[in-house]
């Protein structure tokens, strides 16, 4: 990847060559010559002391405004209760304290900035000056000196001659970070088969998420969408979040004739079907149901599943159907699970198979 093979003439001429590093007037031969820095033009403040005075007063006014705004900030902090709400058009009802603090702080800061910039623009010298640039590369003598120094140092260290030292040092330095890597091991347990199992098991009742009551078939109307959790899982449980992240269930009732998938029909009860609520794409909870089409939609990435046809994906980025939970009715007439999901719920992963 060297550029040795690009001939010099392919590079443009030195930028300054035709344009002259030194300024020169245009003439016959050099119509595009660099005329050099244009002469400085005076601002009104440079020649009119009255105007300069006005600028001074403007700057001072801005700085004074900042001081007043800071006093206003402190006054608002003390005077306005934290829970006071106020109507400000067109913002609507907003926190009075937040508005007052923000506006006063904003003015206090902005006025300092505006004052400083106005000062710089109108009263400080605005004459443009040129600074020379110097090449970043070191001159050849320095380069040669550094290389020689390095070689000298390397030679004196005998690292090139005593290969045993060099090799064992590299070995030690390579191994020592491993301790740090090993220490990271206890960041978490190994996955094992945890992603394959949920709290659902044979005989667990389907409990309505909203009412906390076990569900009967009669509680599930055609066209409605009900969310359920396994019996025994309570909000206060230590592992509630982790368990509900896998066990969340959505229940709908279809007309049994409308169910197109044979297994779905077998695993249903009187047209009531239970599917995992966790999207198989990246795990958002599916929460939108369209009763006419039996489509369930994940609001995060719009994966759409046909709940009347084995919850297969009909649109969007999800890769496979929602897992179905096999349900039945126990002796007391409550809906119960007939086992765990047969496949892992939620997003796909390498070991899913």
């Amino acid at each position, binding site marked *: 990847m060297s550029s040795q093979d690009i*001939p010099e003439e392919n*590079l*443009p*001429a030195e*930028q*300054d060559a035709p344009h002259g*590093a030194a*300024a020169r007037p*245009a003439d016959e031969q050099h*119509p*595009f*010559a*660099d*005329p*050099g*820095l*244009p002469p400085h033009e005076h601002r009104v403040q440079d020649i009119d002391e009255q105007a300069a005075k006005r600028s001074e007063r403007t700057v001072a006014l801005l700085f004074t405004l900042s001081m007043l705004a800071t006093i206003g900030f402190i006054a608002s*902090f003390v005077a306005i209760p*934290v*829970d006071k709400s106020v109507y400000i058009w067109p913002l609507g009802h*907003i926190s009075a*304290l*937040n508005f007052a603090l*923000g506006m006063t*702080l*904003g003015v206090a800061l*902005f*006025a300092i*900035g505006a004052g*400083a*910039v106005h*000062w*710089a623009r109108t009263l*400080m010298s605005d004459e443009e*000056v*040129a*600074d020379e*640039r110097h090449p*970043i590369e070191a001159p050849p003598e320095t380069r040669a000196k550094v290389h020689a120094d390095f070689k000298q140092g390397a030679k004196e260290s005998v690292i090139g001659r005593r290969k045993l030292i060099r090799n064992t040092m590299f070995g030690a330095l390579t191994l020592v970070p491993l301790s740090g890597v090993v220490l990271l091991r206890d960041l*978490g*347990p190994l996955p094992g088969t945890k*992603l394959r199992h949920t709290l659902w098991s044979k005989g667990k009742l389907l409990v309505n998420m909203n009412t906390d009551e076990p569900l009967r078939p009669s509680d599930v109307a055609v066209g409605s969408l009900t969310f359920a959790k396994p019996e025994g899982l309570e909000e206060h449980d230590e592992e509630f*979040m*982790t368990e*509900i992240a896998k066990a*969340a269930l959505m229940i709908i009732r279809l007309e049994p004739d409308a169910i197109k998938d044979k297994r779905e029909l077998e695993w249903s009860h009187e047209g009531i079907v239970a599917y995992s609520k966790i999207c198989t*794409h990246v*795990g*958002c909870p599916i*929460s939108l149901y369209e009763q006419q089409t039996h489509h369930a939609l994940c*609001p*995060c*990435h719009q994966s759409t599943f046909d709940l009347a046809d084995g919850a297969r994906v009909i649109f969007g*980025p*999800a890769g496979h159907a929602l897992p179905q939970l096999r349900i039945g009715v126990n002796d007391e007439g409550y809906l119960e699970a007939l086992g765990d999901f047969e496949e892992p719920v*939620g*997003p*796909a*992963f390498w070991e*899913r198979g």
Partner: protein
Amino acid sequence: MSTAANETRSRGKAPAGERVADWADGRLGIYSLAKANMRKIFPDHWSFMLGEVCLYSFVIIILTGVYLTLFFHPSMNEVTYHGSYVPLQGQLMSEAYASTLDISFDVRGGLLIRQIHHWAALIFLAGMFVHMMRVFFTGAFRKPREINWLFGFLLLVLGMFTGFTGYSLPDDLLSGTGIRFMEGAILSVPIVGTYISFFLFGGEFPGHDFVARFYSIHILLLPGIMLGLVVGHLILVFYHKHTQFAGPGKTNKNVVGMPLLPVYMAKAGGFFFLVFGVIAAVSAIATINPIWAIGPYRPDQVSTGAQPDWYMGFSEGLIRVMPGWEIDFWGHTLVLGVFVPLLIFPLVLASIAVYPFIESWVTGDKREHHILDRPRNAPTRTAFGVAWLTVYFVLLIGGGNDLWATHFHLSINAITWFVRIAFFVGPVLAFIATKRICLGLQRRDKEKVLHGRESGIIKRLPHGEFIEVHEPLSQEQLHTLTAHEQYKPAEIGPTVDENGVERKVTGTQKLRAKLSESYYGEDSQIAKPTVEEYKEITSGHGHH
């Protein structure tokens, strides 16, 4: 200073500030540093303040962030809320969420600082993005500034992840959904995905650890690296001296502008207050991330219209439009539908990061460049940049496909398909169109140099012909419009040398010759006017 005579001398002659400076110089050597930098010249152009916006918003983020750590509890312990926000009283939520509510409703000024922190983060990211585009389109990344380009690029990437870990901390329903999305993406990684996920979350999602872990990443690890990069970035800006646009008196060997002390101390220092002031005012009137309205996170709940912060939008677009491909084999699953977006995400970013090195390889140019290009004068580079932006914005559309659908009454299927196609076709079209526009602008510049400015005055000649009077340009303008460099395409040259021996031409050489042709060939730049052309036309022999 032990004798009275000495004391009177120092008291009598040197003012206090000078004595402090002398004291410091004797220990830190500040005078040599100040000699080089106090009156350092900085050129003036509006686009040079974009980087300042980033720097100042970064400072604002650190200031407000430190304040927020005083009140925020990075804990996922479930507590019942008893604070002053009535609608959520009695609800179970994590301590992280509850303390964020306290910051918003019970700490006076807490809401303001939280909003300044979030607004400043959004502006920081937007500022870095636009600043990077400025540097890209003007070629400011060329030697000697390639390393500073990489520093800036790293700041952008780290800024994105600092932002992501930051808005995830309150543990609200929206950010938790984002975390879930991230977890799902990690799970898609072949072989190690589940392990990474379990190590990151301390077990199964969501577990009890991620808020505390993200907290240390968000407030310590990433900002620590970023602070180092920012300092390095600024040291290099000082060391290289700022670039400037071509113009009268401005060469590759000088820098024309005004001194740091006093002009840029006042302007840049003042600009910090302007940026801070505007962000404070915006935070007073525009609510950002109202976590109280979103509610605490529950893995089985979600709201519609879930969106990441804007800078993560293009990754959201990737994941939304990718078809859900999954390959099952030998008891394993290759989740291409999620894993491919996860791979393209860094590739999109890396493609712009490595560009400077590709361009310098194509040109073979090893000289320093301190004069900025006008984008039109580097058509291929400009076209590549616009193509990249096209990909970026097409993916942003994909990331908000639901909002596009609801706000513009469009079919979400149609939008998704549009993004899928435009991801491939859009950049190609943008490339072609941009290049043509650049060449058109180059032609216009040439026309202006040779024929002067159109004055709008129509003159009738004695024989009846109407002509428009063109005013010749001033020498300043002529110089500015012809100051840019033009490369010649690198040719492979004869493959047989003068002795008839065949010369080996490697594949990379051929590739470079091809690229060089597409950069600097006849179709890729308009030869700038020569002195001869100019004289030919202005000597009066030409037609008007």
